[in-house]
């Protein structure tokens, strides 16, 4: 488990996504952690010290695992960069096919209904003309 700073972590995460395009998965885990072992935490609690919690982010491609720890000061910057990385790489998901199908189906239906309406208008015209003659 490699613990990195937020920026190198994002770089590694990007290369993980790039390596896993044809085969494999990328797992990203978010967990709240104080980054201290249980014994230290209990000592701090009994001493009355406030424990500073951080957000632990882990990423793996099944073989290599990387991680980083975010504090309250730098998490928003990481959040924005992380969102950018995800948006850039998660493009294999299907786009709104149903709405596209509806869009293609609606003009077809309109054309079909307009054709049907035009036919009955044509039919009464010739018998009326014949009757006048």
């Amino acid at each position, binding site marked *: 488990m490699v613990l990195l700073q937020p920026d190198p972590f994002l770089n590694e995460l990007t290369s993980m*996504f790039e390596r*896993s*395009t*044809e*085969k*494999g*998965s*990328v*797992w*990203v*885990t*978010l*967990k*709240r952690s104080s980054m201290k072992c249980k014994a230290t935490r209990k000592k701090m609690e009994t001493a009355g010290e406030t424990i500073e*919690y*951080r*957000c632990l982010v882990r990423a793996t491609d099944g073989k290599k695992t990387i991680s980083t720890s*975010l*504090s*309250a000061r730098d*998490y928003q910057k*990481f*959040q924005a960069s*992380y*969102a950018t990385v*995800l*948006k850039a*790489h*998660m*493009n*294999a*998901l*299907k*786009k*709104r096919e149903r709405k596209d199908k509806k869009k293609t189906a609606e003009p077809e239906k309109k054309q079909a209904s307009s054709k049907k309406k035009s036919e009955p208008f044509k039919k009464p015209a010739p018998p009326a003309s014949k009757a006048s003659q």
Partner: protein
Amino acid sequence: MVYIASWDEFAERSVQLFRADPHSSRYVMKYRHCDGKLVLKVTDNRECLKFKTDQAQDAKKMEKLTNIFFTLMVRGPDADISEASGKEQVEQVASKKGRGRRQ
């Protein structure tokens, strides 16, 4: 493994689960580019909630939920999350519209 069909239900229940036990809850995301699938999991090692999708529109929702979890984890389970501020903004906008109609 409980797969939840509705996104809104998954989001609400996962936030509740985290708030009930922030120390042991975790949020996992798995993305497979070759299959075009995204799976989300929130668990406290007792109960597990999952959501799977292959739709691009769910990626945006996932991004918002991820931001919520970031805020909850760093600031604490009692923090005001962006969802709450988003809803408040909507309420303010609605009240402004109401005032406009009355005038």
